[in-house]
């Protein structure tokens, strides 16, 4: 079957198998930042934005992406400039192997869009579906909170 959707604003019209997952589809279209860590909805490394909402793309039937706007980490960089979430991740040492990074930053972007004043306790709960084995989450949390503060300031909040 054929579906139409956009990824980071770019239009796609693609032939898919009805039972295919969005993660498989995106990777075969070349969006390699969408990772396959478990293919079971447990690790969050396949996180993408689906109509602005962070979801496990391995749990989404590609067919459901028909007419949808999908966001991957490549879309976070506007006009060649790093998003605050990317910049603080780099500056504060939140990136070790980087395999969880795209998923986690997309989730963080969604969380902060819904609640710019996210506190640490809630952030830690909401990050629980994005597994990281390298960092112990310490610098991930620091970096996301730092980006949030920066974004609030920029918005004049």
């Amino acid at each position, binding site marked *: *079957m054929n579906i139409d959707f956009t990824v980071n604003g770019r239009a796609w019209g693609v032939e898919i*198998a*009805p*039972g*295919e*997952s969005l993660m*498989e589809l995106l990777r075969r279209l070349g969006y390699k930042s969408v990772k396959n860590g478990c*293919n*079971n*909805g447990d690790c*969050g490394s396949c*996180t993408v934005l*689906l109509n602005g*909402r*962070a*979801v*496990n793309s*391995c*749990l*989404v*039937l590609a*067919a*459901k992406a028909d007419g949808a706007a999908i966001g991957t980490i490549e879309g976070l960089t506007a006009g060649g400039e790093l998003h605050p979430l990317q910049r603080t991740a780099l500056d504060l040492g939140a990136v070790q192997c980087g395999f969880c990074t795209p998923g986690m930053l997309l*989730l963080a972007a*969604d*969380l902060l869009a819904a609640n710019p004043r996210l506190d640490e306790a809630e952030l830690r*709960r*909401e*990050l*629980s*579906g*994005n597994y990281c084995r390298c960092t112990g989450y310490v610098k991930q949390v620091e970096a996301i909170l730092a980006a949030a503060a920066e974004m609030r300031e920029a918005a004049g909040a």
Partner: protein
Amino acid sequence: MSVAGASTYLRPQTLAEAFGALGPDVIPVAGGTDVILHAPVGIHTLLDLSALPLDYIRERNGFAVGAMTTLTGMLEHPGLAAHLDGVLAETLAHVGTSLLRNLATIGGHLARGRLSDIVPTLLALDATVTVFDGKPRTLPLAKYYADGLNRKRHLLTEVSVPEAGPDTAAGFLKLSRTFFDMALVNCACSVRLKGDRVAASRIVVGETPALGASAPSAEEVLTGGTLDADTIAAAASAAAESIEFGTDSRASAEYRKVLAAVAVRRVLNAIRNRFEERRR
């Protein structure tokens, strides 16, 4: 994952069309998160329900929630989330993380009928569901499961939570090894007072590992009495005694029984505190 054998994708526009399409090699798809992982071998047709007008939350004598409402949709509805001291918000906040809640629908979750933190809370709130199997009918959620309806050919279209007055309070607790985990046990209770006496209550323990077991004998312990520490402890014991527990890879039956008593006691204590706060 993927549904490897699926060859057909349908997206019906009406309930009748959707129901008519159901069959042995057809699987209804709500959020799709279960289907994509656990669709049985032999499924050829995916029946996507997202075109049906079932994504709504209406406040009328309580709340009517369309089956295709996502768990996030429920959490973000101010009235529903705040209902009864936020017991539904507390419950939903423990179901996966927003990644899953953004996809999973209440209808798909209830129809799955296993591994649930939500069912005990809905049972404790006397929720009803509307199903369509040729024609629509409404029945208590408990009966939906007791009659095995979730395994029969049907479509779940709505879940309703009745309104509650200031004389009612509710609570929920999930005991698990880590935050992002299936419960070892969970517990949801609601209590309605008349004056300072318990007029009625619901005590439900879930993940026993069965779906949600109510404890009428424990409810009886509370009825007519005041909500004090001793009565609560007695009700908690009675609940643990009356429910059947099982052993699985997460916990033994013996341990679950102990946890159940602890959970019931803690939830009832939280409810008692809520009533006390309201009096001030």
